[in-house]
C-alpha cells in the first residue's frame, strides 16, 4: 500500500505504486503503466503537500 507519509518524495511514491502494480496487475502491466503511475504519483505527492483544512468535510454532490 502507498504510504501517506508527507515526507515521501515523488519518486518514492511512484516506486511504491509500481511495486503495488506488479502485485495487482503483474510485471508486464506494471511496465505498461509506468507513465500513468508517474502522473498518479505526482498527483498524490502534491496532495500530500497540500492537506485540506482540518475541519473541511468532503462534499461529493454540490446541490445548492
Amino acid at each position, binding site marked *: *500500500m*502507498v504510504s*501517506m507519509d508527507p515526507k515521501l518524495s515523488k519518486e518514492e511514491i511512484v516506486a511504491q*505504486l509500481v511495486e*503495488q*502494480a506488479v502485485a*495487482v*496487475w503483474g510485471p508486464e*502491466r506494471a511496465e*505498461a*503503466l509506468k*507513465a*500513468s*503511475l508517474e*502522473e*498518479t504519483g*505526482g*498527483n*498524490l505527492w*502534491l*496532495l*500530500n503537500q*497540500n*492537506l*485540506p*483544512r482540518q475541519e*473541511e*468535510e*468532503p*462534499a*461529493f*454532490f*454540490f*446541490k*445548492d
Partner: protein
Amino acid sequence: MTNLHDLTVGEAAAQIKDRELSPVNLLQAFFERIDALEPSLEAWMYVDREGALGAAHKCEEEIARGEYKGPLHGIPIAIKDIFHADGLKTTAGSRVYEDFVAAYDSEVIARLREAGAVIMGKTTTAEFAAADPPSTYYPWDRERTPGGSSTGSAVAVSVGMCPIAIGSQGSASTLRPASYNGIVGLKATYSRVSLYGMLPYSFTGDHVGILAKNVEDAAIMLAAVAGYDPNDPSSSREKVGDYRAAALSWSKPPRIGRLREYFEVNADEGVREHTDMVVQKLVEARAVVEDVKLPASFATAHAAHGVLGRVHSASFHHDAFLEKTDKFGPGKRLQIEAGGLVPAVRYVQAQRLRREFRRDMEEIAANYDVLLTPTTPGPSPKTRATTGDRRFQIPWSYSGLPTIAIPSGLHPTALPLGLQLIAPGFAEEQLLGVAHWCERVLNVSLKPPLPVAVS
C-alpha cells in the same frame, strides 16, 4: 435564402411554430447533409433514420392539431453515445458495450422527447468519454484532432449535420471540442442537469454538455433538460430559470474578472495576443475587465481532479474490467489500473480539497458577472492520437461551476479559438446573459472550409 441546415434552433423553431417549416422537411435537410459529409468526417455512431422520421411525422401532426410544445418541438438533436435511449445501442465508443441496447431513456433524452425534440441518433465519443479518441475527422484540418470526448457532437453541429447536440464534460469534453470547432459549448453547474442514464467518467466531475451554434440555442436546450430528478442522487432542487429570456435580455456591459495567471501563462503567444484583442473589444463596448488572482487551492485542482477521475473509472468499470479486460482501449485501461491503486484516504482528501476550491472560487466569482479565460491554450494540436489539451476546463469540471465557451476568432494558424466564461454556482442566467452580450459584441461566425475531401 438560408439553407435549412444552416438555421439556428431559434430560427427553425420560429418557422415551425408558424407552420412555415415542416419538421419532416427540416430533418430531411439534415439527412442530406449527413449523406454528403459523414463519409469524410465519421461523426456518427449511427443515425436512427426510421425512428427520427417517425418522431418528425408525429411532431408535424401535433403541431397541425395546434399542440405546439415549445422551441424544441420538431427540432432534430444529436446525442453523444454515452446516453441511454430506449431500444437503441449505447456503445460509449467501446468494444465493452458494442452490443448493449438500452432498455430505458436517460433523463436528458426523456426530457428532450417530452419537449418534442427529434432524436436523430448517436454521435461518436472517446471511449467512455475519456482517453482513446474516435475515428472522427476535424473539418478544419484532417491531421488534427477535432477535440473530445464529445467529438461527434461538436463536428456534427459545426458542419450543419444537426442543429444542436448533447455532449458531456467530465474534464474538458464539451468546451474544448466546441472551441476547436468554432461553436458554442455549455455545461451548467454540477447537479443542475440529471446524469441518470449517462455512462459515467467521474461521478463527481461529470456534467451534461450542450453543443450549439449560438448562445440562444444553448439556453433553449438547457431550459429543456435542467431540473431536479429523483433518480439522480446528485440532482439539485435549485429553481430552473428562463434561460433563453435571460440570455436575450441582458443589456448592461458586464463586469468581468480576467484570470491571467496559469491560463494566459500556459497559453501560446497566438492565444495570448488574441485574448488581448478580444478583451480590448469588450472594453471598447464598455465592459469592465479586471485582473483576478487565483486562490491558493487552485494549486491542487488538476492533481485532485486526476485522482478522482481515475478512481471513479476504476470503481465504475471494476467488474467489467475483470471480465473483459482485453476489450478496453489502451488509454481507458491505464486509467482503470492506476485508479485501482490510489489509497482511499487520498481519494477522500481530494474530495475535501475540491470543496475548498469550490468555496474559494465562489467567493472570487461573486465579485463579477463572470470570470474569463481563453478556452484552450492553443488551437487544435496536430495529432489524432489525443483529444487535445484539457487543462483550462479541468478546474471548472472539478469545482462544478457553470461555464460556457463562445467562438472568438482565429488563431494565427487560421484555426478557431474561443473565450471561456465562468460564473458562480447556479448562476446560469447570468452566465448566458453575459455570453450573449459578448457574442453580440464580438460578432464572430466560424465555418470550416468545406467541402471536406475524403483521403
